């Protein structure tokens, strides 16, 4: 059993890595739900000027025809002008890359950003699409039978591994 990543420490590392590249035009978009929690924290920590966005990719997932509509879909909220913006997509774990593909497709329905970056806490490998993170403080190889889940208790974030 690998050691669980320390979510709090990784958030701090991620913020430190991102800080030099945050401009007044930078906007954060967190992916529901784990990514939205991290984006909320980063938004405060980095003093991001643009309002915080969140995205639920349920309507853009590529497994709809196999698995149906994802239950508990939430409304996406993009409270800034996407056209010409610098956007950082924030997620907890980067795995197959399919969620990021869906998030990019959804974002482009709001407009044409000037640049999009990706910030994640953990890269667990297993990519099925050519997607790479701009910032990622930890790599952690996990077998396909395991899921790495971010949880939030009050303000505190922590990781848990569940078996499928």
């Amino acid at each position, binding site marked *: 059993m690998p050691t669980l990543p320390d979510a709090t420490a990784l958030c701090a590392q991620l913020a430190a890595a991102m800080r030099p590249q945050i401009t007044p035009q930078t906007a954060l978009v967190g992916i529901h739900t784990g990514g939205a929690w991290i984006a909320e924290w980063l938004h405060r920590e980095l003093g991001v000027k643009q309002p915080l966005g969140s995205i639920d990719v*349920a*309507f853009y997932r590529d497994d709809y025809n*196999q*698995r149906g*509509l994802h239950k508990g879909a*939430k*409304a996406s909220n993009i409270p800034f002008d996407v056209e010409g913006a610098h956007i950082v997509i924030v997620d907890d774990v980067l795995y197959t890359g399919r969620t990021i593909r869906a998030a990019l497709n*959804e974002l482009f329905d709001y407009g044409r950003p000037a640049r999009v970056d990706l910030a994640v806490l953990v890269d667990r490998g297993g990519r099925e699409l050519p997607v790479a993170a701009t910032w990622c403080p930890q790599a952690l190889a996990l077998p396909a039978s395991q899921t790495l889940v971010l949880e939030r208790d009050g303000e505190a974030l922590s990781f848990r591994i569940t078996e499928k």
Partner: protein
Amino acid sequence: MNRNPQLNAHGELQHLITLEGLSREILQGILDTAEPFAEVAEREVKKVPLLRGKSVFNLFFENSTRTRTTFEIAAKRLSADVINLNINTSSASKGESLLDTVDNLAAMQADMFVVRHASSGAPYLIAQHLAATGRSHIHVVNAGDGRHAHPTQGLLDMYTIRHYKKDFTRLTVAVVGDVLHSRVARSQIHALRTLGVPEIRVIAPRTLLPTGVADMGVRVFQDMKEGLKGVDVVMMLRLQNERMQGALLPSPQEYFKYYGLTPDKLRLAKPDAIVMHPGPMNRGIEIDSAVADGSHSVILPQVTFGIAVRMAVMSMLAGG
């Protein structure tokens, strides 16, 4: 087909024929799913890719501009291909049977039928026929059948009530008007009960009440002023002139006097009561213009919410 022919083996919606018999969990699931679809309508590109490559056939054996249009917009916003058929001007008038029409459209790779029919049970008959012929992957949505049901109207009404009033379990809701001919009223009453509304009132003249209406768990009032006292929600029904047979009413003027919703009568409801109407409205017959266009009216938001609710229903049926 299993016990509830609308559900598949996993208890998920396969067709939407009626709200009767659907659990609170399923109804709430549809309303919850409609919320993020309402957000899609606020975007510049009001479209999501869920039903890309799917063909939705709007099968309208009975005219309805609003319902057909909102189903069409909903399907298009889900990226489906939409084919509109007004059957009364097409093959049925040449004598083709309902199921022959369905078979032909199924042969054109239909994925979903949205059916409006003057006969109660027509959408169910289609669903049954598809299942019996091994084509249960084709979904059926009832867009109003005879006097039976109009489930998406009932759902959009519930969405509207939840939007303005939040909690169903503290409400008094009045359904007013031509209950006898109204599939809308039946769907509304089933949904209101399932969602836990403690007091449902039906207000209508005796001649426009179906027999056994009290068995649906409602309080019946023939005096509108009495029935409107203290209600949170007034759901008006359209007086269905085209369905009237014989002399059920003395005159439209007299109907307006006793059962038309005027500002005076509305004052008996709670000060923050909302007024709903499924459209099309007969102004000056069941509703006064001052009410229809007044501050309590949520009649136009109902239309907007209807698109999100229909997107939710179609995307819940067509996936997986």
